[in-house]
Every structure is written in structure tokens, then in C-alpha cells.
């Protein structure tokens, strides 16, 4: 039901409306929301109080100069009760900023938000867990921080413990927990929040598959209770599995609010579009001290088990000092990073004094059929050049295995494994 309701609620850029009465009002109502960050220019920001006082004494009238960045601009939407809304968009589109404003971690710069109840957040799992405290103490501390009252925690304590499966270790300090136990306990607390609105940022990416499914089921229950779930993710699979509607953000603006399929379609097609824009080196993020001149795959198409070779060029620079390294992210069509190839890991550093014509050879894993994009990063202590979608290549729809099987034999998994069976 919520899909159709959400579909009609798209009011991008419409003028502010009179506040709806409490009855029948949407769970979340956002009007003309904007957020600007002021970024201090490099070296223009005193790091010590002494320096700040001295500077003020020397230049009493000078104001600090900032670059203004618009993280969100004029975003307007309504979310009805009982819907699970996915928020998708590329990095820097404003998804996390939107969630941070809704959960009041940061304040908006303009606009107005009306929430129909408390917002519980699951922004990063285990936030507020203290390693020296026991599991029991952490349940209370974390639950309180997430906005639960003591009575609510007491009432749901057994449920939380059961969900997490750490009954035996309740009186043990969590620093002695395995990372799996730690995550399960942290998620269990958060999943039992009784807030009317729940905001989640990528947390389902943790834990094993069984636990992830348990989490998705839990989130569905939350929405079925008539509460509202907001979910930010890069993982298209979980957005599809969990959400009844979705919004697509691009460069701080709400482009689409409606069906999940439409939002995801816009999201995936944005990768190609963005790659085009990023060809203009001056518009790419990074300090610009040194930038990639070009990048292309050695072939347009590869077989899954071929070596994939990315050739890149970096001009020499006399003014740049100190060795730098290169990192490449290979992303699949869903925007999932399949592999991070950092030259530091294989002991390669580059000298800025000379022109570099480099080759990155990705030997494993075998890639599934589809289109892949490569993000290239040039880094020293900070990022000099971040070139997202520097090039793309296609993997042919063939199997890298000696024998064939029906589709269900190879459709699972993000990559193909190189394996043998022995007996």
C-alpha cells in the first residue's frame, strides 16, 4: 500500500505547505530542506587556541574564509506510516546527510522537518559500546543512547538477549567478545528500539548471511507494525528486499521519490553519466596536486577468468614532492566494490618526478558477467585525485568452468570462485 501512497507524495521543489494536522499526518514530512557545510580552506584554520588568539590580535577584523558545500538543496518529501523507504544515490549525493539531519545528529541549514514520533538510529552498530563494561551494562547504556527508556529496555531485555544469542556471556566484559558476538549484541539492542521511526545506514552489511536475513526479517516486522523505516544503502539487493518505496538523490537534490525499481534504475544509470563528467580532471575531488591523465582497460571485453588489465598514465610534476601510491576500486553494476587494489599492498610507490605509464593487472577473482567500473585514487597523505568511474569493461556471459550446469548452479555469489572438489 505504501508504494502507491509514496508515489503520489513526490513534491520536488514545490512551495511549502501549511502544516498538516496531527491526525493523518505523514510519519516524516520534509519541506525545502537544505544543508550547507562550511569547509575551512587548507591552512586557514588555527589548530590551537594560542594561534587563534594571536591571529585575532593581529588581524582583528579578518573573518575566516570558507568554501561552502551544498550537501542538500531544497529537498521536499513526505513519508507515510508503515513504509520502508530506501535512500539510494552515489557517494556524496547527500544520503547520509539526510539521515543525519533526520536523526538530529546535525542541524539543517534551512527548511523544516516534522516527525511523527521519536527517531531511532542504527547509524553505526556498536556505537557507545564500552569494551570494559559487561554485556548487560552495555545493553542498558547503548539502549539509552539510542533513545530507549529504562522501562522499555527492561521489558525487552530477554528478547534482546535471545536475539543476540549471547546469554552465557552477559556478565562478561564485551572486550572479550568475538567480533561476531559484539555485532550481534549491538544489532539486537538497536533492532528492539521501539521508536516510531527507524533510520538505518548500511548496517546490514555486517554479520553472516543467516544473521543478515534475520535482520532483514526484523526490519520488515518493524514496517509491518505501522512504523516507518528509512534505509540508506549501496546494496541494491537489500534495498529491493526490504523497501516498499525508494528515493534517489543526486548532488544534494531529490530526483525521484516513488517505486524502488525506478530509483534503482536511476541510481545504476548514474554511474555511466558520472563517468562522463569525471573526464574533466578539474571537476574531480582531491587536491589536484597530481592527477591521472588517462585510464583504459587493455580490452573492452574479457572472459571471466582472463587477467583484467587497466592501463593508466600520470604525468610527471616537478613541484610535487614525495612518493605517492595508487588505489583502484573495481565495482560491479550494483555499485558494490568487488576488489580494492592498493599499490601499497604490493609494495609499489611512484615517484612524482617522472611520468608514469602504469598497468594494473587483476588476476583473481574471476568476475561474473556484467559491466564493471574502475575508480582510481592517487594518494599521498591525502587524496590528490579521486577519479570515480575512470573506465569500464565488460565481462562476457560465459562460464569459466569446464562443465555447464543449469543457471541455479552459478547464479549465487558476487564473483566466481576458482575451486576444485576432491574425494
Amino acid at each position: 500500500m505504501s508504494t502507491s501512497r509514496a508515489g503520489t507524495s513526490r513534491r520536488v521543489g514545490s512551495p511549502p505547505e501549511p502544516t498538516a494536522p496531527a491526525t493523518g499526518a505523514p510519519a516524516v514530512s520534509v519541506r525545502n530542506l537544505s544543508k550547507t557545510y562550511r569547509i575551512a580552506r587548507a591552512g586557514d584554520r588555527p589548530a590551537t587556541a594560542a594561534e587563534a588568539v594571536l591571529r585575532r590580535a593581529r588581524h582583528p577584523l579578518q573573518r575566516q574564509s570558507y568554501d561552502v558545500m551544498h550537501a542538500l538543496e531544497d529537498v521536499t518529501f513526505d513519508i507515510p506510516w508503515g513504509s520502508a523507504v530506501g535512500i539510494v544515490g552515489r557517494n556524496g549525493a547527500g544520503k547520509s546527510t539526510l539521515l543525519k539531519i533526520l536523526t538530529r545528529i546535525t542541524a539543517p541549514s534551512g527548511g523544516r522537518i516534522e516527525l511523527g514520533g521519536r527517531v531511532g538510529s542504527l547509524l553505526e552498530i556498536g556505537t557507545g559500546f564500552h569494551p570494559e563494561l559487561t554485556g548487560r551494562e552495555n545493553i542498558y547504556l547503548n539502549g539509552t543512547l539510542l533513545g530507549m527508556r529504562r522501562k522499555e529496555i527492561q521489558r525487552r531485555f530477554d528478547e534482546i538477549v535471545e536475539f543476540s544469542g549471547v546469554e552465557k556471556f552477559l556478565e562478561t566484559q564485551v572486550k572479550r567478545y568475538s567480533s561476531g558476538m559484539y555485532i550481534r549484541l549491538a544489532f539486537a539492542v538497536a533492532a528492539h528500539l521501539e521508536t516510531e521511526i527507524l533510520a538505518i545506514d548500511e548496517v546490514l552489511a555486517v554479520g553472516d548471511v543467516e544473521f543478515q536475513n534475520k535482520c532483514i526479517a526484523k526490519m520488515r516486522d518493524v514496517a509491518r507494525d505501522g512504523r516507518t523505516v528509512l534505509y540508506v544503502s549501496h546494496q541494491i539487493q537489500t534495498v529491493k528486499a526490504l523497501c516498499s518505496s525508494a528515493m534517489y538523490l543526486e548532488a544534494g537534490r531529490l530526483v525521484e521519490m516513488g517505486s524502488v525499481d525506478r530509483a534503482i534504475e536511476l541510481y545504476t544509470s548514474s554511474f555511466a553519466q558520472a563517468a562522463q563528467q569525471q573526464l574533466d580532471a578539474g571537476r574531480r575531488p582531491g587536491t589536484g596536486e597530481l592527477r591521472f591523465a588517462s585510464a583504459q582497460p587493455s580490452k573492452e571485453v574479457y572472459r571471466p577468468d582472463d587477467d583484467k588489465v587497466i592501463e593508466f598514465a600520470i604525468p610527471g610534476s616537478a613541484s610535487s614532492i614525495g612518493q605517492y601510491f595508487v588505489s583502484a576500486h573495481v565495482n560491479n553494476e550494483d555499485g558494490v566494490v568487488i576488489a580494492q587494489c592498493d599499490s601499497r599492498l604490493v609494495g609499489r610507490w611512484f615517484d612524482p618526478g617522472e611520468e608514469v605509464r602504469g598497468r594494473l593487472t587483476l588476476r583473481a577473482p574471476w568476475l561474473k558477467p556484467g559491466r564493471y567500473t574502475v575508480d582510481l585514487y592517487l594518494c599521498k597523505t591525502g587524496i590528490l585525485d579521486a577519479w570515480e568511474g575512470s573506465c569500464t569493461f565488460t565481462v562476457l556471459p560465459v562460464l569459466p568452468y569446464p562443465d555447464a550446469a543449469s543457471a541455479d548452479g552459478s547464479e549465487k555469489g558476487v564473483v566466481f570462485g576458482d575451486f576444485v572438489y576432491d574425494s
Partner: protein
Amino acid sequence: MTSSTTAEARRIVISAPGRFRLPAPRTLWEAREVLWRFGLRDITLRYRQTFLGVIWVVLQPALTAGIFTLVFGKVANLDSGGVPYFVFSFVGMTAWNVFNGVATRAAPSLVANSALVSKVFFPRVLVPLSTACSVVVDLAVSLVMAVGLLFAYGINPGWAVLTAPVWLLMLMLLGAGLGVAASALMVRYRDVGYILPFALQALLYISPIAYALSAVPAKYEIFYQVNPLSWLLQCVRWSLLGQPMPPWWQIGGSVAASVGAFLLGVLVFEQLEREFADVI
């Protein structure tokens, strides 16, 4: 489709914050549990991590008072206004520890909890304020010892003892004002962490804590007349040691200064808080 929980829930409005603002009392009240949980965490960790935790709380003021007795009472032979020097400096240290404890524990608290502050919403001012919980525990231990000393030395402060909680609360507010402001400044300026302990050390010696106001030469008295900490110490000594009641303007002034410092500290905090969230 609207569940019963949502019908009774109150609508929350978020809009861009104004220029000067104090945290809404309602928000603070709703988050009181956070204050308590943070305080509980600090107390638990303090006494679980240091094996000598409890003993330390007892020993620290007693040792300091003992040293002050030796240095100021015996070596320098300063006046303590007719009260045995040990009791005199013990009460002084108890009062100082309330002020100093809140200020020094509150100041680094925000940096220490920065991960939390950037991930979950709750009134952030509660982080430095919650440090007062563990100071209250220390204070309680000190007060029990102080009462023991009063009986042991046969000192009867009279009805003025009823006002003691007020002065201790004022010391706490004064310390919290300083600590809360410092905690927000420390996020931005790392040297605040070095300046503050030094400033507090200096304040310890220029305030009449280890010695009585009567031991101060007349020409320097003006410095003590303008120091709110000195007024508060006079009030504490009046209420606990039966020393003469300070003038009314000092009593009123110490309350005004403490409440004022607290509000100013919170105002500075709120102002900076907004900035450190937005200036990356």
C-alpha cells in the same frame, strides 16, 4: 494503518537553529537517562579499572590536606582562623575538588566520546555534565570523612551547616561552566588540554584554599575580593567550620557568579557545538 503507538506520539519539529540558543529543557529532561547512564559508566569504570579506586578517593584529599598542613601550617606558619590546620585544609580541599573535579573531568570528555557524538543524537552537553556524577561520589566520601573530623576535633558549625549543600552545588556549577566550555573548545583547539590544568593549578594557589583569607597581606586583598572562588570558600568554611559569615554581597555574588558561569559555559558550548558539526 496508523498504529496506536504513533497516534499518541508527539510531533517533533526540526528547523535551522537560531543564533543563540540553550538546549530545550524538555529535550534535556527526556534525555536524563543518558546523563545517568554516562555517570554510571564513569563510576563503574573508575572503580573497576583502578584497583585502588576507592582507597584513592579517601587518600587523595587526606594526603593533600596533610601536605598543606605541613607546608602552610607548620613551615610557613600561616593563620587558619582558629581551626586546627588539618581540618581547615581538608575542608578547603574538599571544596576545591568539587570545582576542580568537574572542570578537569568535563573538559576532555567530548573528545574522548567523539565517535559517539558523531553517530547518535542526544543533547551533547550531557557528555561533559555527566562527569559530575563521579565527582558527587568522591564528594560523598570526602564529606563522610569531614564529618568524622568535625566530631573528632569537636567543631560545631551550628545551623549554618544546613547551607553547605548550596555552596557545594555552586562550586559544581562554577566548575561545570568552565569544564563544559573547555570541552567544546578542546574539540577545536588541542592546546586547551594543556592550558586548562595549568590555569587550574594557578587558581588553586591564588585562591585561599590552603590558607585563610586573614593570612593575605592587605595590599593583595583586592585580588581575593574579586575572586568568586574565594567567596565560595568563605561560604563553605562558614557552613562547615563555624567561621564568621561572609558579607551578604559575597553570598549573593557567589550564587550569581556560579549560575552565570554555568549558563555562559553552556551557551559557549551550544555555539561551538553547532560549528564543529558543520565545519569539517
